[in-house]
């Protein structure tokens, strides 16, 4: 049997557009409007991303109908603007946005085209701000040229901080969550809030997204910032934002990424306890969370333990750190039949992943072609990419590592549910 991976996912290590990051940073901020200074087609990536997010929310029954959605307007650069410059086009676009949406503020994301032709977007934004008497901010990234998704996200946060934040006296036991992770209604943030409660902390702001102007202005009053990254590249940008806020307003931050897996959660709790000097709460939190995990392990283990499981990896190490998956499988009593590195990985990415796997598991590692036989006999496939074989029962791993014990439990429950399905039925369960 030959595995045919659906060509729906393209893997590009560290290569992404900064504009969706800009949009995402303020997508649910009351009164914000985002302008893409770009050709019209650039808007579609964000549209697709947003649509996917919407369906995921609906599937998880998290959909919040009243959630503000920032209008996204594209300046519509064309061939003539690539020659003569697009500044005038952008001015007109800002004028349209102000008249049509009456925004509280405008954030401008720059495309590759704007970057290549060197439009002075900063100057246009400043002049428009003067003319229309509203804050107009330009984010200093240019699509794929000098940025990536998280760079756009970070720089938007930084622009908002520069523009709207002023020093304020600290409010005790308040936390600002830095990052996205599906917003305040999402399971990751709920899980995080639960962990913060052990320390008597309350998340009073989410930044830069999901924040009204009032909430943004409240950030400097936070007693602490907690970055929500989820993977190395995201965390490095969120850490930078946290570091900026510390420098600007003296708000300290927990220098640790989201708690992922049980070991990761324990380390996170310890670090938080150390930072706050509240070690007794750490012990309580560990005890309760371990109990929570054990309860689920007992339920899931019986259903999964006997299954022959194969792990398929098609994401590079930059986007997918597999240690939490091994931890999860170990709790359920599963020993992997094999690990298949999917074709989408480049040679370099495959080598890096092989080295990482050697440190985590003794399971045999195969390339896609070699792994066909082991896949054939597998009962369950845990995978980063949807496989075309619909007769296989597949658990599609979440793109972001799940937060805390709650995240682990959720994936475990889904794996158990998958194991209960009749083998012939196959099908896929999405792990997010």
């Amino acid at each position, binding site marked *: 049997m030959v595995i045919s991976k659906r060509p729906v996912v393209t893997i590009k290590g560290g290569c992404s557009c900064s504009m969706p990051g800009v949009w995402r940073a303020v997508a649910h901020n009351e009164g914000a409007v985002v302008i893409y200074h770009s050709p019209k087609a650039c808007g579609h990536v964000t549209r697709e991303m947003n649509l996917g997010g919407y369906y995921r929310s609906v599937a998880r029954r998290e959909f919040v109908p009243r959630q503000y959605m920032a209008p996204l307007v594209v300046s519509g650069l064309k*061939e*003539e*603007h*690539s*020659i*003569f*410059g*697009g*500044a005038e086009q952008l001015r007109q676009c800002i004028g349209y946005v102000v008249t049509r949406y009456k925004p509280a503020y405008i954030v401008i994301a720059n495309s590759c085209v704007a970057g*290549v*032709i*060197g*439009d*002075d977007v900063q100057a246009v934004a400043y002049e428009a701000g003067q003319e229309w008497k509203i804050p107009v901010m330009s984010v200093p990234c240019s699509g794929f040229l000098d940025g990536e998704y998280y760079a756009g996200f970070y720089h938007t946060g930084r622009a908002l901080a520069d523009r709207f934040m002023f020093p304020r006296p600290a409010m005790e036991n308040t936390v600002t969550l830095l990052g996205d992770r599906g917003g305040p209604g999402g399971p990751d943030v709920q899980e995080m809030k639960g962990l913060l409660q052990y320390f008597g902390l309350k998340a009073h702001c989410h930044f830069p997204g999901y924040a009204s102007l009032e909430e943004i202005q409240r950030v400097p009053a936070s007693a602490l910032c907690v970055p929500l990254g989820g993977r190395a590249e995201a965390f490095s940008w969120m850490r930078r934002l946290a570091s900026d806020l510390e420098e600007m307003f003296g708000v300290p931050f927990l220098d640790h990424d989201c708690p992922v897996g049980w070991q990761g959660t324990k380390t996170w709790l310890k670090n938080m306890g150390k930072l706050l000097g509240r070690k007794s709460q750490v012990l309580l939190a560990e005890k309760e969370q371990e109990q929570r995990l054990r309860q689920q392990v007992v339920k899931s283990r019986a259903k999964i333990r006997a299954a022959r499981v194969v792990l398929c990896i098609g994401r590079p190490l930059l986007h997918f750190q597999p240690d939490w998956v091994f931890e999860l499988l170990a709790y359920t009593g599963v020993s992997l039949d094999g690990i298949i590195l999917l074709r989408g990985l480049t040679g370099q990415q495959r080598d890096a992943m092989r080295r990482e796997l050697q440190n985590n598991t003794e399971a045999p590692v195969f390339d896609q072609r070699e792994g066909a036989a082991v896949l054939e006999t597998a009962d369950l496939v845990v995978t980063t990419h949807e496989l075309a074989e619909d007769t296989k029962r597949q658990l599609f791993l979440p793109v972001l590592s799940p937060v805390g014990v709650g995240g682990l439990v959720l994936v475990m429950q889904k794996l158990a549910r998958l194991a209960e399905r009749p083998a012939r039925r196959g099908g896929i369960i999405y792990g997010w």
Partner: protein
Amino acid sequence: MKKVAFYGKGGIGKSTTAANVSAALAEKGHLVCQIGCDPKNDSTRLLLGKACAQTVLDMVRQNGDEVTTEQVVHTGFAGVKCVEAGGPEPGVGCAGRGIIVALEKLKLLQAITDEHFVLYDVLGDVVCGGFAVPIREGYATDIYIVSSGELMSLYAANNIAKGVARFSGRGRARLGGIIGNSRNIANERELLCEFAEKLNTRLVAFIPHDRSVQQAEIRRKTVIELAPHSRQADVYRRLADYIVENTALTVPTPMSLAELEELSLTYGD
């Protein structure tokens, strides 16, 4: 049709040389077209007797796909067809992209079909892919580099030679030679001769520094038109004749900066 391009450092005299060569060729009855590939629109000024008012990109911007040949091809001295690519104001947009679009539009219009000679006068150095288009995409086959003996001019010429060498594998563009445009520096002719030799080409003309060029320029005329019997006019005529006959086109062998500095030091010290 012989397709010629003039490159060289900014302000070195490419447009003046190109316009005088065009005028000399037209004078002999050849059908000639000169295309200015520079957003300043000043390549054909001496042939038209004025700055070109309607550039290709102006018309594309104004009329989109409805541009006609008549709108962008103008007639100058001795019937020379004059085209200016045009481009953005200084400091905005991308002039290189403009050159690509303008040349593609001209090709689409089939505006230049019957000419014996097409001369491309290209802005300064080969600063980006757009300005390499005449070399890269086969618009021009015979490349001439205008240079004085000044180090920075030689430096630019050497860079242009790198561009020609880079694209020699994929097209027919070759180096026709170095056109020396004198700045009256010491041992200039000898320096340029050796420079050309090191680039695997030759000095095809040495244009002396002469007042008539300046006089013609301020009157918006070529030397050929203003002072047809002058020695300077004959220099341009000889250059035009050389370009007509020249078949010794080469793939250049650019020098390193150290070699270039050494050469300048040898002659200029």
